């Protein structure tokens, strides 16, 4: 896995705004008879990192998918930077500034690392015009390449830029996913279990990269993660979910000490 770049000694809260960037109200989603998300209310401010924790089946990934538009909620509202997302398709949400990484890697095996970022850069700007291709005007522009190089440097992937992702290990693939999301300069990054399948060393490196880019870019991050050490390392506060509902919110240690949270994880309040 790529080495993390040097951390920038910035105040964690420097880029944080007091206004909500993402607001979720009364969100519900049912699959058959199972209510995966059962009336979730939450908000995330610009520039803050929120850890979303909870046992398996708590509804965290479904909530992610509803925010991204990959799953249509049954009811409730999602507002991003004042814009109601309602029936907005996935690609428009991405262009609006919502980036994400996936629990199960969703890379493009035929493309190199650089091409992943280039494609993401083009997709963000909506520059996918056929006529430009036919007039041979689709070559990467210098400003695009510089943004791609900056993102590669930010996550420490410059040396692997021309490598096919099919040849990379899981840990590096997770960083490529992160870089792909970052090149579009999202204002909110949804990271779905980024440490899944990684060893302790790789998880630590990934957490460092995530923290660094969050501070440099000043974006908000919603992090679904089972590894509580990583959440503590990266997140400003935590939201705990169980059975589709938010059961606690606040600093991670306080949240984990809550009786309902302990009950959700351990089956007992003690």
């Amino acid at each position: 896995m790529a080495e993390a770049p040097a951390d920038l000694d910035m105040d964690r809260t420097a880029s944080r705004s007091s206004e909500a960037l993402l607001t979720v109200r009364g969100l519900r989603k049912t699959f058959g008879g199972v209510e995966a998300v059962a009336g979730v209310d939450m908000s995330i401010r610009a520039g803050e990192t929120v850890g979303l924790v909870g046992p398996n089946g708590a509804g965290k990934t479904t909530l992610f998918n509803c925010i991204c538009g990959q799953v249509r909620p049954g009811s409730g509202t999602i507002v991003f930077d004042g814009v109601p997302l309602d029936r907005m398709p996935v690609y428009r949400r991405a262009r609006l500034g919502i980036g994400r990484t996936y629990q199960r890697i969703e890379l493009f095996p035929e493309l190199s690392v650089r091409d992943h970022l280039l494609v993401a850069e083009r997709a963000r700007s909506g520059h996918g015009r056929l006529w430009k291709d036919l007039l041979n005007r689709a070559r990467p522009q210098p400003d695009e390449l510089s943004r791609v190089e900056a993102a590669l440097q930010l996550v420490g992937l410059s040396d692997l830029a021309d490598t096919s992702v099919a040849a990379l290990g899981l840990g590096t693939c997770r960083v490529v996913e992160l870089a792909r999301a970052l090149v579009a300069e999202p204002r909110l990054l949804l990271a779905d279990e980024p440490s899944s399948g990684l060893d302790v060393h790789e998880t630590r490196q990934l957490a460092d990269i995530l923290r660094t880019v969050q501070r440099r870019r000043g974006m908000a991050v919603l992090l679904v993660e089972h590894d509580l050490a990583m959440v503590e390392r990266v997140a400003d506060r935590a939201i705990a979910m169980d059975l589709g509902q938010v059961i606690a919110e606040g600093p991670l240690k306080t949240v984990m000490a809550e009786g309902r949270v302990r009950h959700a994880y351990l089956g007992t309040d003690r």
Partner: protein
Amino acid sequence: MEQLAGFVIPGIPFGCTYALFAVGLVLTYQATGVFNFAFGAQAYAAAFVYTWATQVHHLPAWMAFVLTVLVMSPLLGLLFDRALFSRIPATNNMAKIVTGLSLFVGIPALLPVIFGNQNLLNAPSVFWNIDRVYLRIFGTPINGAQVTVMVVTVVVLVALVALLRATELGLQMRAATESRRLVQLDGVNAGQVVAVAWVVSSVLAGLAGVLLAPLFAQVQVQDYTTLMVAAIAAAGWAALRSLPVAAGVAVLVGVAEAVLQGYLPTSSWLYSAVLPSFPFIVLTVALLVVPGLRVLDSERDPLASVDPPPPPPLRTVRLPAMDRTIRWGWYILLGAFVISMLTWMPRTWENVFNSGLAFSTVFLSVTLITGMGGQLSLAQGTLAGVGAFTAAQLARHLGFNLLIGGLIGAGLAATVAVVLGILSLRLRGLGLALMTLAAALFFDNTVFNQSSITNGTTGLSLDQKWVAPFGFFNPNGHALFLLALVVLALCVLVVNLVRQGTVGRFLAAMRGSEAGAAGIGINLTRQRLTIFALSGALAGLGGTVFTIQQQVGNAQQWSYELSVAFVVIVVTSGVSTVEGAIQGGIGFVVSQQLLTYLPGRFGGSSLVFVGFAFGALTYAAHPEGVVEYQKARATLRWQQRIFEHG
């Protein structure tokens, strides 16, 4: 009331014939996870051998029945499973579809090669006598063949439902469809269970083929494929899951057809246009409204990730010297080809190569939609026909220059492709293949059979002066060659520009992960429709060039069988490269021409289709195309010999 009954009752045996096929399709899918495109071809093979045995070798009907249904069919099923489908990972849906299509093309083509060209008429009935009326319902006579079909359908349906629902084997079959690995972990020999399912399904195909043979005056593959469409429609309404629903819908389709046939005036356009397309309309509506058909390719196996990903294409890392050598080799070959075509090439062979260039253009549309777009379209031949007939009609009626008409035809083909793309927006893999097959069959049976469009079997004769005012255009010279070459070169340029451009990169991303592509802001719908439109336009252009060369345009040139065969050919020669399309186009016509020098049963075009079908059977192992794979291997070998060891 009596009139209605008089229309309904004869429809029931027809519906039962559809039901036998529909039940077979659902059973195969339920028990093996494979949609058996070759089911109709298997039934046809059984009918062919049964009729051949009884009519040519005068075997008693019961003996021929045993030979075909109880010996040949199960062996065929076992062969399919052991040699083909059991080697395809459960997650590789594309390979399963392509293998089924290869058998669909290969089996009917193989029969005349093995048995010679046979004109098989009047197959005998196995059980009840076809010439005898056994009962009357509301005054409608029911003969022996109809009784046989109805009784056998009911017996088969009851037996299969009992097998799947009430026996341990049935439970194992259903479980194996969900996850072979989980079943194996429970101590069940999943491979054996699936093999049994293939045997049962093949016996059913053989049974259907033999029972239906007496209903047709002659044993022809077209009758069995038409039955397949109605059966697919019925199986679609059952979401490929419920045997009783599939059988019920199949009977309803048969009855509805009979009632429409009875009530619609024979002189109306509804009779000639809507009635033949009724099964395709039923299938299209099923694909649009049945939710289960949208998730046919979604993975249900919790252990699916155990499967290795499809093998990566064999890539050669060419040394610069090797690269230069190959490039110059191609330039020299191209130069020699052009000079030969313009100087000494015999007229017969010049025509052959001209057709090859036109087919290459049509095949480039397959490269675009399937190789680059990752969408399996079985309607590219149909789109070529749309372009060709549009150009021809504009020339005949409005005096348009054929080349201008060709561009308008390409535009219309692109429009048809976009409509097809819009209808298929929620479909992937198998669902899309079925939708495009339905479209191809619809055009075949409803549009291309209209005399006003294609002038019947005679076809539309073209006058070369319609290519005027281009004075140089002399069909007795080399103008046809130059036209085909220029059009192909332009289309190659377009494909290469798209591949290297943003759209090509977006498509590569979508092939890798649609969720990932949408998540970074790629508008999947727009990209899909773009590639549908572009591939439709290329197909339409290729079709027009071919029609200009032939100086006649008819429906047989663009039948749905050829549409399916086009995919099989391109898959064999290389679906993801421009070279693959050109190799396919030239190889298709050159091999046909070479075979004309062979005597007897080997002299027709059947062997060509058999060859390409066999090639496409290797798709699971060589998704880049077996020809491209062999080329890459040869390049590596030569590189090692010449440059690395030297």
